[in-house]
């Protein structure tokens, strides 16, 4: 295994030395377990420390580091009696994870974690809400519930707002993973009724309930990042103006080609015509259909009927 860089070793050392000093003779096993290093790595770190110290490097100015009876002792290293402060990367990394975890508990509060976040932000000189993983209130609870379902392999039922069909339906699902893609939270679950994995947007799931049933996680889970509509559905090819590029970020495409004028030729698989009609009405003249069925008249008429 490649040796970590001097900078990485230094970072580890700056945390390990104060910890060892504060714990006054911890065992070798404890140190190795806590800092995920081997005994030989620990030994060579201590050897190195033995050569370090302060000018003029007379015996009294050298760091003492040794292993006695399988316990580690470090002395005369007062300059390292505390670890460094959290740097910005570490601070935001920890705050983001802690804040997101607070959201996972949904309606229940997690006073211990909240207290930890408050102390941490106070020490960093910022307000507790400096970082917010903004999950909408219903999603908080749902994320927590789904997280449990994923961990415990519990089957769930949910109402799902199908964007394509503009309708709601109740489904029974085996949740396998939660992830983010295309700017949304998704659940990857096995739908036994359809005998296939499907991806669901969390913000379209409603009245999620855990059932008593458990399932055996399947090992044929598709790559989360590459969900795509079934190849059975027809294609529609559109020319999309530069101003409507966001469409690519939002929806999975079959193919994309750029034109000289900056417009894009995009091909979508369309499983539900309503989805396409909604997109076309929204884009107006920013999109032109080059190929494929796209009669928006009944969809548009239904909307316009409300305004008479």
């Amino acid at each position, binding site marked *: 295994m490649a040796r970590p860089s001097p900078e990485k070793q230094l970072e580890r050392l700056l*945390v390990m030395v104060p910890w060892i000093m504060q714990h006054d003779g911890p065992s070798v096993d404890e140190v190795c377990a806590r800092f995920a290093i081997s005994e030989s790595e620990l030994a060579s770190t201590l050897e190195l420390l033995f050569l370090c110290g*302060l000018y003029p490097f007379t015996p009294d100015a050298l760091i003492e580091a040794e292993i006695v009876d399988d316990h580690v002792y470090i002395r005369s290293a007062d300059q390292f009696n505390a670890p*460094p*402060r959290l740097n910005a990367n570490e601070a935001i990394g920890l705050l983001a994870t802690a804040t997101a975890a607070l959201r996972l508990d949904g309606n229940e509060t*997690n006073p211990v*974690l909240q207290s930890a976040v408050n102390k941490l932000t106070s020490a960093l000189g910022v307000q507790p809400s400096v970082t917010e993983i903004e999950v909408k209130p219903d999603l908080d609870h749902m994320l927590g519930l789904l997280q449990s379902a994923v961990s415990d392999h519990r089957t769930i039922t949910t109402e799902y707002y199908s964007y394509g069909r503009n309708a709601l339906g109740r489904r029974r699902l085996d949740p396998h993973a939660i992830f983010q893609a295309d700017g949304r939270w998704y659940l990857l679950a096995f739908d036994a009724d359809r005998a296939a994995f499907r991806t669901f947007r969390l913000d379209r799931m*409603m009245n999620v309930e855990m059932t008593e049933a458990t399932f055996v996680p399947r090992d044929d889970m598709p790559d989360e990042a590459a969900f795509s509509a079934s190849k059975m559905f027809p294609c529609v090819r559109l020319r999309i103006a530069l101003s409507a590029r966001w469409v690519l970020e939002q929806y999975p495409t079959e193919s994309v080609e750029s034109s000289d004028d900056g417009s894009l030729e995009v091909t979508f698989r369309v499983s539900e015509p309503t989805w396409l009609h909604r997109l076309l009405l929204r884009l107006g003249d920013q999109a032109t259909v080059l190929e494929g069925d796209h009669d928006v008249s009944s969809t548009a008429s239904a909307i316009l009927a409300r305004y008479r």
Partner: protein
Amino acid sequence: MARLERLVNLISALLEANKPLSREEIQRRVPGYAQDAEAFRRAFERDKASLREMGLPVSTELLDPNYPEEGSGYLITKNDYALPDIGLNRDEMDALALAASVVRLQHADEVTHHALAKLGAGLRNTDERAHAVELVNDDRLATLFAARSALAPVTFCYRKKTRTVHVHRLSCRGGHWYVHGFEIGANDQRTFRLDRIESALTVGEQNGYVPPTEHDNRWLPTWEMGDAPAVEARVRVDREFVAVAQRQTEASPVNVDEHGNGEFLFRVVNEDAFGSFVLSFLEHAEILSPEPMRTRFVARVQSALEHHTAGAL
């Protein structure tokens, strides 16, 4: 090993110094630097950069403020360096470690674990699949967070305009990171999506503004972002989609009729974005007022219908 040794000795020297150390003193007091001036300069610059990159507060100060011509030296102030006692108890440390085992910020495993190690929290043994939730990451987060901590204004290009912002908060929603703050040029609160920032960030002097108060913690939907004056719009949503609308907007209907259909009030700055939102409900939502917005919406749908019907010919 040699460089690691030199780095440890360099940090020791800088920490122990109670006044800035000149380069000559550093070369003399820290073993591992070459005698040759040029080689020393290169090595020292490299070491200094490494320490600063790690976040260590190596400060450059005048050797003697009364005699600026004497030049500058370097030191690390122990108070600035050392992690203060944050006062976390065992349960709180465990809670943070647990949080880090359940939520993963992409590409930040090592960094988060290192943060926990500094705080004295042990790591929980986790297997890969135990991370139930993954958050997207962004390279600029740390810089923006540091700017917020230091109350340093940040300048960047966004939608072709240069902006200087007092960072107040960072948020992650739907997989995108946003920075919220006060934009000086606009004299108003603004929200910026990090992946739409078009330039590198320039961070100004620290303590350039006062910390934000707990005022506007509200999430801004797309139709509330922009430069135009706000208009209040009233929308009716059919019963089956009221819950969906609530979910998407974090708003509750101001009234619900006997059939369960709901009426919502929205603050609209960007009418195009608002229209797109209403359109997403197709025939299950209707803009009730203001009348001009309702009329323009009808025209938009009409025009889109004509465009796409013409295209079919």
